[in-house]
């Protein structure tokens, strides 16, 4: 854009370039402020939190809050539970979505349209709306306070099916026909051609699903009532009740709960975003 503007506006744009960037960086820090503050508070001794000095940075940094958080609650157990639930759910989500997407993308069969519309229609039903009845189902199956119970409602996602199907559709039928002529069965085509060539989208769906399940709060809250089955998101809210003012250990717990998603986010932001876009925009 700049080349057309001539010398004068080039000079202007150099200054405005700096101004725009400074402004953007300022805004970025404002957005991050609550997180940065939480990290900072997690290292403050109790005497520096919620005082008239309104400290932003710990004067005498300490690990005391982390010790308290780990000693008073089974924080490691919460983390382990969350990892088990998020990994298991994401694994099955991806596998089942791959199966369904394969069927919808590669075959023609009776009722295909209706079944596909049925699958997509589930996007219209907000999951929170179903928790009452799903809780009844899960408790009837005696799955309250079990990993299967927590994972149950996260095992399938119409969004994931849709995104992977879109990806599979770009594989022309001719490729499958070629595989058939070579004598490869559908199973072999699925496992030795389709899966390896679509690693990127599979990774994206897995990672975004991991973050999504890791961050779930309402369902795990309802379907567990024993401390050792709580996930981290439910667990940290139990580090204090609404009235108490002991925020140090809570912030330590919050920071620990953030670490996995932050790592995932930093590593794979670009991939997740492009994956989500491919689903949304083509829709």
């Amino acid at each position: 854009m700049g080349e057309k503007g001539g010398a004068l506006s080039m000079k202007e744009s150099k200054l405005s370039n700096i101004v725009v960037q400074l402004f953007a960086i300022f805004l970025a820090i404002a957005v991050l402020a609550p997180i940065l503050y939480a990290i900072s508070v997690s290292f403050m001794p109790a005497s520096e939190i919620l005082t008239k000095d309104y400290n932003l940075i710990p004067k005498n940094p300490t690990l005391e809050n982390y010790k308290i958080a780990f000693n008073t609650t089974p924080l490691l157990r919460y983390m382990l539970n969350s990892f088990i639930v998020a990994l298991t759910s994401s694994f099955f989500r991806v596998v089942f979505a791959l199966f369904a997407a394969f069927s919808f993308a590669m075959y023609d069969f009776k009722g295909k349209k209706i079944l596909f519309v049925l699958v997509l229609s589930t996007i219209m039903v907000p999951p929170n709306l179903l928790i009452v009845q799903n809780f009844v189902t899960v408790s009837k199956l005696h799955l309250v306070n079990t990993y299967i119970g927590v994972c149950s409602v996260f095992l399938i996602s119409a969004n994931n099916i849709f995104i992977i199907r879109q990806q599979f559709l770009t594989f022309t039928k001719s490729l499958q026909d070629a595989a058939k002529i070579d004598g490869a069965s559908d199973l072999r085509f699925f496992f030795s051609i389709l899966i390896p060539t679509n690693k990127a989208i599979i990774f994206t769906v897995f990672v975004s699903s991991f973050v999504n399940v890791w961050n779930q709060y309402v369902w795990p809250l309802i379907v567990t009532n024993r401390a050792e089955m709580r996930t981290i998101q439910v667990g940290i809210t139990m580090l204090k009740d609404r009235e108490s003012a002991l925020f140090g250990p809570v912030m330590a717990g919050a920071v620990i709960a953030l670490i996995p998603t932050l790592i995932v986010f930093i590593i794979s932001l670009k991939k997740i975003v492009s994956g989500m876009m491919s689903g949304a925009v083509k829709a």
Partner: protein
Amino acid sequence: MGLEMSKKFINNLKPYIWLIPSLFLFGVFTFYPFFHTIYKSFFIVDSMGKVREFVGFGNYLYVLNDKKFLIAITNTLIFLAITVPTSKVLGFCFALLANKKRKFSTFYEASFALPMAMASSVVAMIFQLLYVYPLGILNGRFHLDIRWLTDSKYALIAIAIVQIWLSTGYAFVFLLSAVRNVSNDLLESASIDGASPLKKIFSIYIPLTTPTLFYLLVSDLAYTMMIMGLVNILTGGGPNNSTLTIMLYIYQQFARTGNYTTANAASIFAFLLSLTFTLIAFVWEKKGVHYQ
């Protein structure tokens, strides 16, 4: 011949076999609970979830006459009206600001997007600390004197701020790529015509990003309509029900009092409400959305 027949039969079954896991799971955890909730909403249901007595639309009349439920609907609608447009407008402004790739783009793009990866419970705990009265950092550093979470005038706004913080990043990510997809030719010819930056925003950027805005709006309306986690952690619906949302009302009905009867009718009512919004959005789409 018989072998050939059965081989063909198996071949015809194949596509359905691949679909078994997803259809089973959708059946058990989406379709069954959905239709069963509709069915049960016409009955008195005991605390074990068992159907007792047919009452027609009685349960619906009951919840619609329940003052608490009406408050919950009003609160949810106010909450939607505050958070959904604000996060889109902010996301759009951030996207315009970050549009051109610059030296520090990676840093501020990632920062704007980051909240989308945050768990609502963690964020709720952090904002609870920011909002503490009177020694919280928000009151202290900005010289305010607001009981953010305990004054019924401010509590809903306080939670709306958290929701806006959480949802702007998602809107930003989508709008950034929409804004970057706007064709350069269009912008250049507008520049030659002497269009001001503001004119470019209103006559080029906004019309050309309406499909993305529409997608964001529809998905956020249905999602935010069911908001519960933040409220449950921050205020539990208080003070004086000023932050009671539809979903929290439903949750409290069945989790606290074991009242499945009203929970079912309220759930279906909530679904109809969110469906109405989606339909309105689709009507608006026909008129207002600009596809290239």
